[in-house]
């Protein structure tokens, strides 16, 4: 392998994060029935590819439908309902809109 996919995680661009960091939360902490904007995804490259093909791209809107305690959550993104585990949700960063 040429490079480790985990580089992404370490290299989250600090300046962008700092500018808006007061509003940015991880999807794992999102509230039910609220609309958010995806700011950042920070999985390894293969998880990112999966998320991207399901429509999780920075700039896209996402609506959390349900949170299952400490378990998975369901959300709408690009008109699709998607179920996400906690671990994955923790790697998606969002900001609240309206």
């Amino acid at each position, binding site marked *: 392998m040429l*490079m480790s996919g985990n580089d992404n995680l370490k290299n989250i661009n600090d300046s962008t994060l700092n500018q808006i960091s007061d509003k940015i939360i991880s999807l794992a902490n999102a509230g039910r029935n609220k609309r958010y904007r995806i700011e950042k995804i920070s999985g390894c*490259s293969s998880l990112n590819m*999966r998320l991207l093909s399901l*429509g999780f791209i920075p700039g896209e809107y996402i609506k959390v439908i349900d949170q299952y305690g400490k378990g998975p959550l369901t959300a709408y993104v690009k*008109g699709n*309902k998607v*179920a*996400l585990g906690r671990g994955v949700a923790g790697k998606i960063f969002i900001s609240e809109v309206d």
Partner: protein
Amino acid sequence: MVKEFTIALVGSPNSGKTTIFNDLTGSRQHVGNYPGVTVEQKTGRKKYKDYLINLVDLPGTYSLTAYSMEELVTRDYIISRKPEVVINVVDSSNLERNLYLTEQLLELDVPMVIAFNMADILEKNKDKVNIELLSLFFRAPIVPTIGNKNKGINDLLDAAIKVFETIPDRKRPVIKYGEEIENEILRIENLLKNKSDSLKPFNIRWISLKLLEQDIEVLKYLGKTLDAKTIINLQDLIKYSISHLKNVTGYSPEILIAQSRYGFINGAIREAIVKEDSSGISISDKVDKILINRIFGLPIFILIMWILFQIVFKLGDYPVNWLNTGLNKFAEILSKVIPAGLLKSLLIDGIIGGVGGILVFIPKIMLLFIVIAILEDSGYMARAAFIMDRLMHKIGLHGKSFVPLLIGFGCTIPAYMCGRTLENKNDRLITMHINTFMSCGGRLPIYILFAGIFFPGNSGNIIFSIYLIGMAAAVLVAKFLRLTRFKGEAEPFVMELPPYRTPTFKGVFIHMWERTWLYIKKAGTIILAISIIMWILFTFPRIGDNYAKNYNEQLNNLNSSYYAGAISKDYYNNEILKIDKEKAIEKIEYSAAGRIGHFIEPAFKPLGFDWKLSLASVSGIAGKEVVVSTLGTLFSIVKTGNSQSDFKSSMAKQYNPLIGYNFMIFSLLYFPCIASMAVFRKEAGTKEMLFQIGFTFSLAWIVSLIIYQAGRLFI
């Protein structure tokens, strides 16, 4: 003159691709595996007008990355086999995400037709689509289809033929990825330019793009193809490009690339589609409010599983009984027609007894697959995985592992095949390795027999305890394997929850039949061979006149005393039976099977098993049902009116409840049967199969040893 060409079907999961494939080919399909991987390959043929068309149904994928086996298979097929036409099936009610795949196909430069499937839903939503315009954007003809109503299929074929007959014009890249990315693409392209000959099937731009996405498979491929110096240069360049892009934009390249792709798709959709605002809650959402409710979701799921079991095991009992009766009749007729001798014994005891044992299972297998197909096609299976994910996560597994484990309670063979739905190799192997401990239907007769003999009045609880011990073993072994052989996290859980749909009869039937047929083929051939081997082991070498006692003399004595009136009729009959039994036991002890039993007895002695139980448990390798029939043979070879109770009481006399329980545990813990191991090998390779056999056998032996030795202290 008939022309022949190949069409490959590509589409996202839930796009209705399989329905379109079924419409195109009818039920004349061939299901096989892609060489080396366990992704199913479905092919079919169709004569249409002057063409003979080979159809290939490629696995459903969201994308053409290297994320899962399905995606790799699809990509490799398109690149290396070069089908003349690709039909991309698109769920037109969910365009944005579906066109993401279309866009990547476009970048691969394939001759393509787009099937705008579920066009009726699009119409119902009152969305107006300018198909000509959209077709210009994606440089492929677009044909509206309604798969589940068989509409638009001929138009699709006409369009495919037209594409096949047209010579493609020179293509150029459709999407510009913005200056930053294009610069990096250019750099990589320049480095690879003079190697284009050795990278023949690929176009350089595509490779450069994939390198920026850090596509593992493309990296591996280049590592094998290019010289070391180029590789080192390439590595440096890509490292530089990626960190450069991150510094400038704040995003890693795969995200930038995806953004551009979606941007292109959004632009096209905005131009070509006038969307009616369809806000409001869909029916699927309403159903989900109940089915995956935080409180009711799990109970409802358990209820559905309970219904599944009722259908398979209660309803399935009827056809199984009919088959059993029919088979017995058949054996009866056969035994009258064929003269006594070896051939008759082989046919009736060996083949009908052995293969019949599997044959009678088929109605249950079919019912199981019907219910599973309904659950899958309706969209509930994705929800079931979702509901179970929390629990499965605790034992280090993925929500999707639950379904194969559940099927394992019916039969482990389809359970192994179902493990294919798991994308991650480690998850899949762990799931397969612990599937053994889900007591399959074949083990149930053993439990019923032993619990009935040794724990009368309490057999239900005893059998339940065995099932529980199996599940506990599954949990512990899963943890153990995760910590030792298959390290790492379980696959992150991301899954689409598709809208609920009514399954079609045809779809369910084809699904069910494909799997049942695989089962019959795989299990049937092996079971036939095993039945013959077992029969040979039990029959040869034949004892002839080498009995230890002179039974004929005993019989003669008995006869003369009876005719002389010295003994009663009852006593006489009893004695005859005793002699027959002793004779039969001696016959078995003389046979290869008997010798094997005696040979392995020392290994099983510490578990409390004598040579008969040892032989019976080993014969379970052929199939756990065989254990019961072997015991039947060993304890009452002579069939009399009350042989059943006779056999049970003689077992009860010879062994104690501790041995009985231990035997059940042993049967539970070691691998299900030889046929399942053949399937295991096909799905996971020889090494994993050997591990499964060795591991489960040692586990069974050690656990039984502990139970017996510890239990003896208390009895």
